[in-house]
């Protein structure tokens, strides 16, 4: 089962379930939805819920034989979860910056789309993104330093 397909489906289901007053509302809600879905998915991968592959198929007497050696690199999944947590902390300090991250990073909106979703100017979005990105990078690298300093 392809990840992207699942993400698509979940996303579309979420969209379909809601009704939007206007484009801004839609964009904001969609960005939030994206964040939820991606993080849930990443968490699932990390927690090994999905296991090492797709469904095992028991058909007739033949037992399941994998077609490929499952090889999962969870690095990025972990990273997403971390980013999400950092974002939570950022949101406590500056909700607007967190929203910008949601739009630009999680939903992948352009500056213009982000500006539209949040009711800001393009310029503000660009400026704020620089700040938010800097904050996140610092936040994420701090952890890294600590890790390096204390090899387990």
């Amino acid at each position, binding site marked *: 089962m392809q*990840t992207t*397909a699942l993400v698509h489906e979940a996303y579309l289901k979420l969209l379909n379930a809601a009704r939007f007053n206007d484009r801004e509302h839609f964009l904001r809600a969609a960005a939030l939805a994206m964040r939820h879905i991606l993080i849930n998915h990443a968490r699932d991968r990390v927690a090994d819920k999905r296991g090492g592959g797709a469904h095992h*198929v028991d058909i007739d007497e033949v037992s399941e034989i994998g077609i490929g050696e499952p090889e999962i690199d969870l690095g990025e999944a972990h990273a997403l979860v971390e980013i999400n947590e950092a974002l939570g902390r950022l949101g406590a300090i*500056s909700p607007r910056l967190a929203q910008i991250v949601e739009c630009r990073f*999680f939903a992948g909106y352009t500056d213009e789309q982000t500006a539209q979703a949040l009711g800001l100017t393009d310029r503000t979005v660009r400026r704020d993104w620089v700040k938010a*990105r800097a*904050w996140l990078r610092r936040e994420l690298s701090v952890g890294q330093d600590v890790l390096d300093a204390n090899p387990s």
Partner: protein
Amino acid sequence: MTSPREWQRIDAALDEILGLPPAEWSDACRRLAGDDSALRLELESLVAQVGGDDPLLDFPAAALPTDRVYPPVGLAPGVRIGAYRVMDLLGVGGMGEVYRAERADGQFEHQVAIKLMRREVGDRPQRFHAERQILARLEHPNIAGLHDGGIAEDGRPFMVMDLVVGQFITRWCEEHRSTLEQRLTLFLAVCDAVAYAHRKLVIHRDLKPSNVFVTEDGQPKLLDFGVARLLDQTPNDETRHGALTPGYAAPEQLTGGQITTATDVYALGILLFELLTGARPWGDDDLPLGALVDRILDGNVPTASKFAASRPRSPIPAKQLAGDLDAIIAKAVRKEPDSRYASVTLLQADLNRMLRSEPISARDGARLYVAGRFVKRHRWGVAATSVIAAAVLTAAVGIAWQGHVATQQAARALAVKNFLVAVFRASDPRIARDKPRGQITAKELLDGSVARIDHDFANQPELQLELLGIAAEIYGYLLDDERYDALMKQRVALARRLYGDHHPVVIEGVITDAWANIYSQNFAEAKRELEEADALLRESHLDQSALRAEWWLARDRALESTPNSDALRRLAVDRAIVLFAEYDPLNKSYPAALANAALRRVREVQYEEAARLNARAIDVAKNIPDHDDMDLALIYANQGSVLSSLGKFDEAEKLDDIAADLVRRTSGEHYGTYWRVLGLHAAMLYQHGDRVRALKMFTDMLATIPADWKATTDDTRARETYAEYLTQEGRAVEAVPLLEAALKVMTERPLHDYDLRYLQMLLADAYEQIGRLDAARSSLLWALEDYEAHEPRGRPSVLEAQERWARFLIDHPRDPTDLDVAAKVLGQVLEDGQSLSRYTVALARAHIDLARLALGSRPDAALLEADAAASALRGVRSVHDLRIDDDVVLVRAEALAQLQRLPEARACATSALTAALQHDGPRSVGMRRAQALVARLGARPST
């Protein structure tokens, strides 16, 4: 941890710093922080992170591969699925895995493709099989055939399909360096397949290049028809969308709008775009999902030629795309489904015209005319028991059959328009010249023009069919039933001659005939015709269609005379609802189906469910742009009755008012249904105790019936209700002639089997009052036997008939055993009516009767029964005649008197009289009894 306020300082400082060139940042941090070393540290550490590349944050999150390898642990070669043996894995998609397989028993040489689907699909095996059967019927050279399917042992469903060896259409064209003409030819073949499927009422929903293969010999083959729907497991049928490929999704698939054939048209437009320009319109393929969805909903598909011009390796020169192709694509991918090509065949037509260098339709903005509906001739009856109004809404005689949109629709539209204009231009010499223009009736104009249809359009049979239908519709509006019938018959005959029996127009004609027989109560004949229509529907593969829904509606009605058919009728009407919801939610008969389903529930005393269905019917009706106000009015009236049964008097009144208003507005006051609805409302008012308003409403209603009105069922029923009221008021002398007249009309033209027996009950009441006891007795007995024969035991109507009979025996015993019989019947009523006691006063009345039986010999028992009656009455939920309360009090008074508890007796009698003075007619039975009792007891009425 920084606080939000602290952050604001930092934020402001950053703004200033970042506005400077990077070389000055370090100094700026120092300067702005001053002696706040913590702040300086903060600023410096943040500024240090600006710029540079970040592999994570600089790319959209969704682009991160959160699992690098995610292989399906699928089936190994040699595994058996059903009758097949898996050979190897062909691919993995969003819906499942596809394997190549061969027959395990080696019977046939050829190989197949097996698509093994996700487990959840197997959770609803019935639906899976139903869908599979629909898809299996798609037989077209350009559609990959579906052969078999089932659920594997682990619960995963699978489908066995033609193995298609080839390439995606886009890749194929690229590799073969196809020219514009070649690409268009392929595309037109794809359109053929889609149009075919649409005629079979299957929408693909997921058209994209990877679903369109081209085989080695250049034949396009479509895959995965309708499978997208199968995979969407949303339980609510109406909101299933299943768009799995956002890049090709139409706006309505993303926003939860209705999926129609226009959705496929959109996908075809995008496909055409890609086929001709070499790329998808939405820019890069790895656009993040949110952005992509936003573009689809809000952005515009770029002009194909301009897009091609901007790309270095466009397969077709932009020059060839400019003009017609631009317009065609643009029209196919409009955001509003209604603005696109109404059908795939129209898209094909434009492309063909373009290839032949004829003018195309995409370029004019005219909205194409959609085939009009054939109006229903309504023969509705609003039948009544005293509380419940049951309106029968007939099926639509005309149906918009989606699959039969002819290719020359534009030409047709024009011809139709011209015809209609000609009708009213009255330029036909056959119309009487001696009459001045203004005096010619619409009918005469129409008559003249209709005569020309056969002749003028002899070579265009589809057009003839259309025009005949429209003319019939107009006659319908002019209330010329004869001409309507004649034209509809002519239309059916024509369709039959041209297309044989399996044309929807013909089948629809058979169903119409069945309706006609139903109305004349020729149920046997109607059933036969429905059987005929049934076979035709199946043979024409129209089992899943709005036409089949119409059939079910007729079937429900045709079962009217069949005893014990409630379950079957319910099934029929529920099927109709499902089909309408699925295939034609804008069908005018859809609300009728819902309302009739409500009726079924009413008959089974499931009022809550009935109320829900009626509410839904109202919503659905309002949603239909050209909905029938008369139908809506009847639904409102019915809902009023249902709410009345649920005890919601005020709401019921409101709906009654709306109903009457609607009827008046649509058909004016001189219309039977109007009086009928008013009559019911008045009756409800009377029950509620409001004599004065009820009387006024009745008199107003009667006043609007013109003196020379030919008695029809509707005004007859209105008068019947009035007669019932008169009897209650003690004016049975006036009621009897009305009821007898009604009996005559009803016997000739009954609408429902329960009409007559109810009428007989009313007659019995009236006869009894004027002293014609024999007539009363025989009417009552007839009614009772009819009720018991046709309705299940324990139904309120049966209970009420039985109680009434017992009451009559008590009041006018002919035989000493009559009283015993009465007691037995009453006992039965009490027993049978336990479960439905909320909805009928029969039990309360039975207790009163038993009390009266006990008076004289056992007054204490009588008192107990009176108390039981009061208690039973309290439990009745429906709006009921509150004079029954007075009867309880009266019988109580009598019992108390016999027990020599005179003060209490007097108090009861007085209160009964007071109540009677408020809401009983001066000569009514209730009034007289109260007065007599008060006099006997020597009580004095208060005020």
